[in-house]
């Protein structure tokens, strides 16, 4: 009896989470897949018919491939920027900050206490035509006298970078924090200059954090639509804006669903390709 119970225990522990995922992830995913194959001639008022309309996919991609490309371009750029900004930050917090470590961590996370929307709107004020940033850039002639930042890719990418920076910093911080400092001493002892210590020991050992950070940044960034909505124009719209409009403005459910599925698959493929490339063995 106790033996049987012991064997059942792992399944019992998995049950609540499993049920949650079935109800709130698996079923919606199946529903989304089904919706993407509805007859595009249907409408919300007339109802949809399941006609296995695979043609929804080529149609959607043909119309909106530019937005896909733009999404991954912006997301990739923002991820690269977040890595460049976030790694040194995580490094300093984990290895150099001493007793300021916790305070700095709170500072990194603090923006998350306000809503995504508010933070993005704040950028609207910062990058406004009459704001300090534009003023300074015009002053030093990096921006034409009538040049602006709002309604440009710069503003959108800046906002995405900012919004997902903590997701880059925290995993890298965690892996650097776990780093055995004695390995760094051993490297110094074995004739490695500071730069070499970083290149040959610190950075390779922080790869799990870098991989987690880039994935946690690029995946939500690719689906982001608030930044483009608030700081861009339709010329900067990303695939998220298109899906948003398909569901809520044009009420073209099959197309919105098809675009969502494509986005999902592309992200999945990129993630798998990336993990293969950097080697999961290094990560483990």
């Amino acid at each position, binding site marked *: 009896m106790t033996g049987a119970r012991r064997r059942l225990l792992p399944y019992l522990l998995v049950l609540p989470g499993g049920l949650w995922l079935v109800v709130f992830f698996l079923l919606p995913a199946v529903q989304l897949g089904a919706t993407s194959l509805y007859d595009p001639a249907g409408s919300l008022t007339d109802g949809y018919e399941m006609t296995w309309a695979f043609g929804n996919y080529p149609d959607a991609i043909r119309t909106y491939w530019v937005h896909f490309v733009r999404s991954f371009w912006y997301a990739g750029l923002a991820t690269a920027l977040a890595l460049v900004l976030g790694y040194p930050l995580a490094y300093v917090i984990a290895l150099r900050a001493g007793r300021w470590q916790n305070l700095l961590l709170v500072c990194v996370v603090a923006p998350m206490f306000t809503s995504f929307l508010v933070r993005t709107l704040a950028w609207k004020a910062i990058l406004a035509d009459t704001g300090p940033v534009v003023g300074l850039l015009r002053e030093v002639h990096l921006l034409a006298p009538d040049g602006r930042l709002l309604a440009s890719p710069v503003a959108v990418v800046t906002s995405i970078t900012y919004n997902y920076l903590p997701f880059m910093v925290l995993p890298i911080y965690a892996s650097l924090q776990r780093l*055995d400092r*004695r*390995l760094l*001493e*051993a*490297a*110094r*002892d*074995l*004739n*490695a*200059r500071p730069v*070499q210590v970083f290149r*040959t*020991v610190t950075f*390779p*050992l922080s790869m799990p954090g870098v991989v987690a950070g880039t994935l946690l940044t690029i995946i939500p960034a690719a689906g982001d639509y608030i930044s483009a909505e608030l700081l861009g124009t339709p010329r900067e719209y990303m695939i998220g804006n298109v899906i948003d409009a398909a569901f809520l403005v044009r009420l073209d459910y099959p197309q919105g669903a098809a675009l969502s599925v494509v986005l999902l698959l592309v992200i999945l493929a990129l993630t798998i390709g990336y993990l293969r490339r950097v080697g999961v063995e*290094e990560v483990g």
Partner: protein
Amino acid sequence: MEGAQPGARLRLVELTKRFGGVTAVDRLDLTVPAGTFFALLGPSGCGKTTTLRMVAGLEEPTAGRILLDEEEITRLRPYRRPVNTVFQSYALFPHLDVFENVAFGLRRRGVRDVTGQVRAMLSLVQLDGYERRRPAQLSGGQQQRVALARALVNRPRVLLLDEPLGALDLTLRRRMQVELKRIQTEVGITFVHVTHDQEEAMTLADMVAVMNNGRIEQLGTPAELYEFPATAFVATFLGRSNLLSGTVVGRAGEDVLVEAYGERFSVPVVRARSTAGAVLLGVRPEKLRLVATADEVPAGHQAVAGIVTDAAYLGTSTQYLLRTGWGDELSVFAAADGETRPVPVGQAVVAHWHPRYAFLLPAGTSGDGSAAPVEAADAVPANGAGPR
């Protein structure tokens, strides 16, 4: 070996390290002769690891100088020092295989072809064929060998070993001690080995420095330290000693006369570190012999009477505890040579020794970190009416 220089002489001059208000290493003067296997022996927290880290360049001295032969390296960055370390935790790089771990130092110095040297070194530590293993796939002993090879392959002028065998079990530790000694003889590099294990220090080292409270208590060969310790700390940290506190009462020819617990003892002048005032008279337990009555004590021997309170049979010897008339305990190791018969607990006996095996130390030489028996002996007034 590509014209590598042999081991260097390491010289520490007035080396001091303070952490905040704590002095870890206190004006340390020490010379390690070139090519020796040198042990820095001391209890944990005595400053021996800090000393090692300063030589490696991982810790900056508060004051003092470090010299390799005549070259001053005190302020050199660690990667510029011809010194390498075998760390206590090994600190092998988990993301690199054995080969790359060993090749690490060579590659950082821009050595082009490392294969030959790495393979030669792996074979020196008997790890041929393990090149592609990761550290996590190795046993503790194998990791230890990799750590050794990784440091030695750089042909350092001085190799620093920080309790390198501390994490190994006893049998493996004994085997690695033999290995270390062989390797040191083979490469001829100066080894500075930090340990708290006096047996390890004595087995391995040509020279031992006993360290306590940031200072060197005594420096010498294992035999010198054992046979004629300079301080009570050395006498009790390196092996065991019976220490009787007494007072010098005079001289008789080549002997110093000591009165302790109401009895007279003599010690040859050459065995006396102090010839006046309060002293500690020391005798090693294995130098004591047990007889039944005072009549059986050979002429010229010194004797103390007591009662056996404990006897532990250890195979090669039997260790007795003797309670003396004044309440102290003496320990006596009787070799199991088949000649002596076991003495039962509770029996009154007389322990005797030849004066040339005794030694005389100034009282209060133990610093403040002395071993318990010494403190107990210190607490006993010279008239022998001590408590306990």
